[in-house]
């Protein structure tokens, strides 16, 4: 087991419009990409947000060594319960996952 952030170059999260959040994991190498692709599941990502796994889209992009996830925003951007207007903080939680 290792923390995701120690295995990859960068984890980024951003709004994809006001209703979706997208997470880009830049692995940096073929080896790291293989480890993240095989070791990080959609259900782990869903669990971070307490979201339904069915709502999480996954893209394994081998030529960029990127694993990408998109899911409905935990709160709609700017809603009363929203905590992060640009959705960038979530990367920290993803980076702290053990894989």
């Amino acid at each position, binding site marked *: 087991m290792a923390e995701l952030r120690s295995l990859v170059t960068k984890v980024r999260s951003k709004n994809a419009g006001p209703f979706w959040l997208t997470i880009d994991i830049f692995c940096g190498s073929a080896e790291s990409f293989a480890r993240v692709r095989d070791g990080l599941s959609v259900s782990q990502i869903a669990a971070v947000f307490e979201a339904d796994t069915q709502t999480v889209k996954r893209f394994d992009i081998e030529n960029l060594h990127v694993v990408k996830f998109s899911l409905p925003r935990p709160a709609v951007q700017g809603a009363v319960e929203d905590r*992060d*207007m640009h959705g960038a903080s979530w990367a920290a939680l993803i980076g702290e996952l053990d894989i």
Partner: protein
Amino acid sequence: MVKVLVPSGALGLNYDQEALTRGIAAGPDIIAIDGGSTDSGPSYLGRGVSKYARSSTKIEWAGLMQARAEAGVPLVIGTAGTCGADSAVDWMLDITREIAAEQARPLRIAVLRSGQDPEFIASEWEANRITPLGNAPEIDADLLRSCTNIVALAGAEQIAAALETGADIIIAGRTTDTAILAALPLMRGCHAGGAWHGAKIGECGALCATNPQSGVIMIDFDDAGFTVTPLADGAHASPHTVSAHMLYENSDPFILYEPGGHLDVTDAEYTSIDARSVRVTGSEWVPTDDYTVKLEGARAVGYRSVAIALLRDRHYVQNAPAWADDIVAKCSAKVMERMGLSADAFTLELRLIGHSASFGKLEKRTADPVEIGVVAIITAPTEAQAGEIGKMLNPYLLHHPLTQEEEQPTFAFLFSPPEMAHGVVYEFALNHVLHLDDPMRAFRLEVMDIG
């Protein structure tokens, strides 16, 4: 071949003047810059205002107007004034007129308005010509009528109509980020997949290259694809930086929906042609007969007040969650009792900075912070009620003890008064598309000759 010069990812973010000069010397066919997006939140659309300072916007726009005159080509801004509402377009037009007078140059200006009458949108909804996208909020005709601003995102067709007026400057309300870049290459018969793909790569300026803050890029569109070249010293594009830009703020990195069809970059090929530029081919545009434009709307849902306190006493820092929960319970009960508000008519929340403000109950880490910032966020139906709740909270934030047994504590307020009126709370109300028989039906084009 069509050369599109993009000065930066948004007007208000500044640009590299030297690189812009280099771009003008290279003979662009058009200068295109984005003026906003939803990314700063619903308040800008709700109020119909820009997030950037007028003075910054004016200086940067004056520089682009000067560059435009030197190049003798059109200058286009999309999503003017952050949100692209009609009032933001008028703000941008006002700035443009001021600059035109100062530069003493006659101009033809085309203004494309994207603002929608809520009554029209409500009737389109009732006629089943509005359909939801993924994770769209529930709407009904009354909710649509209650929006303070609704905009439709113009595509390449509406920008093309504006360009066809022969305007020197086009000030467009809400458009897709890509439309202002894709329109001219499409009009001149460049490869459609390349036009949309190049527009997506270029819409954030140099974000698709190294040294992303440098801003200025040139995109050369042709009959097979496009070539992107960052123009600032030290900036270069590589197949990796360019293809990785498709990830940015996109929920799907291969498919991009636009009015009239979608872009598919699954088979795109990215090739370095020199140390600085990347050529892209193989992108596909898939047209559809069903012409739709995306809608964005914002509506007021109440008023907010905010208060801040600091906990530094170690006992309270360690027990902050229990302290905050107790305050919320006691103060909420008092609000209901003394103001007669029901529990669902207001919100009162204490977010603990240094403890869990970023993620709330989803936070996994624990640590022993030196201090905790307490941000109280209150929403209520009226400004007076939001202020009243803030005042009711004041003694708790200042003196609330963890237990009855301990001495009354006093916490730090940053200023007097500690509570601040934060104004109207807006929410995004739409993630839908409007079906149009005529692309111009939801948009209005006005041409004016000044000077």
